């Protein structure tokens, strides 16, 4: 098995020991976030930077809480580019990275929690 991209430390802390809560949070995460990540990429491709920024803003706390640390800075950069409606080369790399990393995280979570 490859190294885990996610880290449930923070979520566990928050749960106060409730397995049920952790499970339900992961369910919610898997239910909603993949769709948002797709949209993130989509809006970038459509050059709708404003929506892209808004989506980044929205999913940022979830990614933080699920401990997907690899994209911690990236998602913030995307949000800022979106807010300023500024496109540049870095942005396409960032989008691609966030997309890939998140999807790997989704796969891992689904496998680990039998979703």
């Amino acid at each position, binding site marked *: 098995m490859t190294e885990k991209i996610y880290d449930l430390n923070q*979520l566990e802390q*928050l749960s106060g020991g409730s397995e049920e809560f952790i499970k339900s*949070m992961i369910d919610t995460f898997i239910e909603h976030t993949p769709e948002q990540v797709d949209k993130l990429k989509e809006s970038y491709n459509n050059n709708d930077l404003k929506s892209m920024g808004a989506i980044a803003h*929205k999913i*940022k706390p979830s990614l*933080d*809480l699920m401990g997907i640390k690899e994209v911690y800075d990236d998602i913030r950069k995307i949000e800022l580019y979106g807010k300023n409606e500024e496109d540049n080369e870095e942005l396409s790399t960032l989008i691609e990275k966030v997309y890939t990393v998140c999807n790997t995280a989704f796969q891992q979570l689904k496998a680990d929690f039998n979703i």
Partner: protein
Amino acid sequence: MNGIKIFVVEDDSFYGKSLHHHLSLNPEHEVETFTTGKDVLDNLYRKPSIITLDYSLPDISGKEVLSKIKEFDQDIPVIIISGQEDVSTAVDLLKHGAYEYIVKDNDTKDRLWNTIVNIKEKIQLKNELSILRDEVNTKYEFSNIKGNSQILKKIFGLIDKAANTNITVSITGETGTGKELVAKAIHYNSARKKKPLITVNVAAIPKELIESELFGHEKGAFTGAVAKRIGKFEEANGGTILLDEIGEMDLHMQTKLLRVLQEKEISRIGGNEVIKINVRVIVATHKKLAEEVKKGNFREDLYYRLLGLPIELPPLRDRGNDILVLAKYFADEFAKENGMKDVSFTAEAQDKLLNYSYPGNVRELKAIVELAIVMAGNTKIDAEDIAFNSTNSMTDFLFSETTLKEYNRKIMKHFLEKYDNNVLLVAKKLDIGKSTIYRMIKNGEIEI
């Protein structure tokens, strides 16, 4: 404290869920999550104790939701939780009544927790305060001014009018007629009731100190001013100030007071800062101010300024049956306080109460009734249990039950003393021949 209802407004269900869970860790918290602005606004009627609000909602902007919540009830603390760290937005929201602005990051839940603990403390204090305030309010409800006389009903009408406006009120009446009670009734039934009612007894403060008492002073303004002091006007800001015994104020101070009332601003002694004040003024006096104006003891312009709505409290002796209503009320209160059974007055006792002149008015009646209960030692108060303190009262006089001749002698003696043994004047006053008086003096019935 139990049942803190927290509304979490968060469109991201994942984050909303985590907040919900986090806040539910304390069993006192009753947490509900809403995903849109409209949803939470539709549920405000259920009176949440605290609302946490995500700034970027899909339907309505966070700022608008905030202002709608504040419109509904400005006392609900709203904690803004936002993904963006934009200082100007934060400042703007705080200005518009947000309780706290928390950014979504790793510290969010701790900060939120601390904020909620703070709010809970505040709510508790507020509840205590409002319980105490209600207690005070009931104490000064109209129904606590006892009596059924027509003259009193008229006064209730005036109090009501005064309470509904900010007009200056001048209360006159003999000592013990309840001037302070009326001032309190006005204040606690007015829109200012949540702000302080400050009472200043002008007669009780040395005239050198009154200015600093009313307007305050800065540190070092005069010898002995070792610290800054806030004056009574400033303390009463937003509320009511009662200037009792205003007739005793000296002319110099009257000038200053007039200026303050006209400009609606004060400055502390020795200070340059001008402080705007919004205070309703109630003045009370046992003197007839109009007469003081004539005598030159009271400034005419100030008199008119203060006259406002005049309320003249009748002396107790003019309130007829109210004497018995009040006597019964004070008796019941006293009995209750001292764990005694219901107290009643015999017909003779009632008669005696009704025939007294009460120079000390209601305050005196209260003292008389309380003493009578103690003297009676049982629940039936008889005439002989009632003792009046004033020496030359008519009732005591009549209750001495002596011969008509003796009554004559007493009356004559009283008048001679009063008019410096001026026999001619006394004869005229009593409409009797002066020889009658001379004869009594000659017979040794009276001495002059």
